[in-house]
């Protein structure tokens, strides 16, 4: 498959995931489950952009690691702050006075 076709397919996947992600969020499931679903969709979309648009696999390892840390860290933070919001609130409340 040509690189252009791969980019086209990545774009199509991104569009479908964007619409699908909205569907997950509007479901009546538990808040943590919704956060996991939305975060998973976010992670897949970020990875598609990194691989096919940004071509991160060609980049210097330090650039690659830093961008991937940001992209992987964000969905994980969404889940953690949803599941442990009270802990974060008490920790930051103590720090902020």
């Amino acid at each position: 498959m040509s690189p252009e076709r791969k980019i086209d397919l990545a774009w199509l996947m991104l569009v479908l995931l964007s619409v699908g992600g909205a569907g997950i969020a509007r479901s009546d499931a538990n808040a943590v489950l919704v956060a996991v679903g939305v975060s998973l969709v976010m992670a897949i979309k970020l990875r598609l952009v990194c691989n096919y648009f940004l071509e991160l696999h060609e980049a210097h390892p330090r650039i690659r690691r830093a961008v991937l840390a940001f992209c992987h860290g964000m969905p994980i933070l969404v889940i953690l702050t949803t599941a442990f919001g009270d802990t974060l609130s008490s920790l930051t409340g103590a720090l902020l006075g």
Partner: protein
Amino acid sequence: MTLAVPLSPTVPVPTPAPRPPQATAGRIPGSKAMWVGIFCEITEFALLFAVFFIARAHHPEAFQAGPERLSLLAGTGYTLMLLTSGWCVARALHAMRRGDRRATVRWMLAGFVFGLGYPAIKIFELQRNFALGLDGSAGVFIVSYYYLTFTHLVHVFWGLLGMMWVIARTGLGAYTPEEHSGLEAFACYWHVTDMIWLMIFPLFYLLG
């Protein structure tokens, strides 16, 4: 040395040999200066996301009810516009690599038009929000929303200005299949700005 690329589609365009993996792996795409700027942008948004998570932890009810106050249609519209613009820019880069300058300009122009869709939707969304009373006094969720999305809008504006510059330089023949680091640097910035929106969108429009 500059490789002259003919504009007429009837003249055969020289196709560069595929880049060997060892020549591309581990390189700095675009330019070092652009990556310094990109990491500044990432740091800025990382701080804003930290503020968002802390505010959300302290005001769970406001953030639970928040997404229903915003237009999901507008949020999805921004996402589709930016993704499609990013796709056009990625295709433009590949067109440049195979030496097709006309196709590069066409893809870049398409990317610019889709990129303009973002501020266009923003105008309609702001009119809707203000009509519903969602201004700076509408609570912590809306304030966080304006703070993050306006910061992102500023970055989109820089990107659109950069895109105009890159389109002009492509049209003037400043880039070649061998040397198009300016085009690539812009593409990196645009894709990272796109990625940051992919993080903002679920935070405000989807997660309750």
